[in-house]
């Protein structure tokens, strides 16, 4: 592949792929998100069974344990903000503003990493307080559900860094930016999922 080749499958406007109503990359990301939704619905379903099935929540074994709601609330705001900055990155490249795209991507990545760092700090605190994966159903479902989301955020940050690298190389334009678009769709999915998990796990 030559250095000038557009990344992410977008080709010249008169090529057959451009004539398709929906590009392969966009269709692929939609199918991936469908699978991701089913994965998280399975985990949320398991959480509901345990949450509604227990008369007291947290269960008696962790009755004194309090999840850090306030810090996680701030973390939620940070992640939602990163969704906004990612959307702005897409808007910037649609207007062919490559420098703005780089800045917005960098800001989004920083917010994503900050989210992970704060969450990691919370986890360390919780483990010190005795909440581990083996400490019972409460710890098990907490770490599996929140951890699964954290892995997705980490994956999205890595993807974002790759997109940022391509943006620095100047290989995105107003016409060729399917890489930014698919990354934005995935990022917004990860961001939109978090408030649901926050309300379910931390507030209910």
């Amino acid at each position, binding site marked *: 592949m030559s250095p000038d080749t557009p990344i992410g499958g977008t080709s010249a406007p008169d090529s057959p792929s451009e004539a398709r109503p929906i590009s392969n990359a966009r269709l692929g990301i939609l199918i991936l998100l469908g699978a991701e*939704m089913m994965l998280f*619905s399975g985990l949320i379903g398991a959480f*509901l*069974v345990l949450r509604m099935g227990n008369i007291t929540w947290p269960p008696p074994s962790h009755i004194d344990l309090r999840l850090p709601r306030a810090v996680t609330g701030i973390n939620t705001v940070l992640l939602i903000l990163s969704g906004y900055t990612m959307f702005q990155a897409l808007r910037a490249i649609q207007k062919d503003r490559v420098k703005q795209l780089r800045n917005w991507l960098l800001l989004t990545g920083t917010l994503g990493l900050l989210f992970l760092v704060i969450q990691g700090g919370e986890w360390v605190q919780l483990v010190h307080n005795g909440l581990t994966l083996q400490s019972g159903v409460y710890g098990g479902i907490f770490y599996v559900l929140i951890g699964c989301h954290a892995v997705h955020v980490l994956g999205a940050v890595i993807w974002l860094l790759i997109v940022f690298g391509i943006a620095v190389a100047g290989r995105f334009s107003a016409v060729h930016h399917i890489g930014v678009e698919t990354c934005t769709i995935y990022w917004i999915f990860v961001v939109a999922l978090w408030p649901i998990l926050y309300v379910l796990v931390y507030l209910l």
Partner: protein
Amino acid sequence: MIRRLLFWILVVGIVGLIVPALLQACPACKTLDEPSGRGFNPSIFFMMAMPFTVFALVGGSVFYHYRRADRKRRLNEKVASETSDESYSASSEENS
């Protein structure tokens, strides 16, 4: 064949009406009064709704893109035909 099938459906229906506990195949239904049963119920409804939600979202998105592309194509065709009409009338005026 159909009469035999209908006969067996009728038999199962009658047995079900007489002994309804036999039809409670799902273990969660038998424990609805217990806390674990109460936990299963919302989870079942939630997970039952998810495939439809996913299908609606993905299908709706694909449908939206198709509609948008179709609208764009029609608009392009309309503009192209109007442009060709104008150039044709301009050239015929020049000729006359």
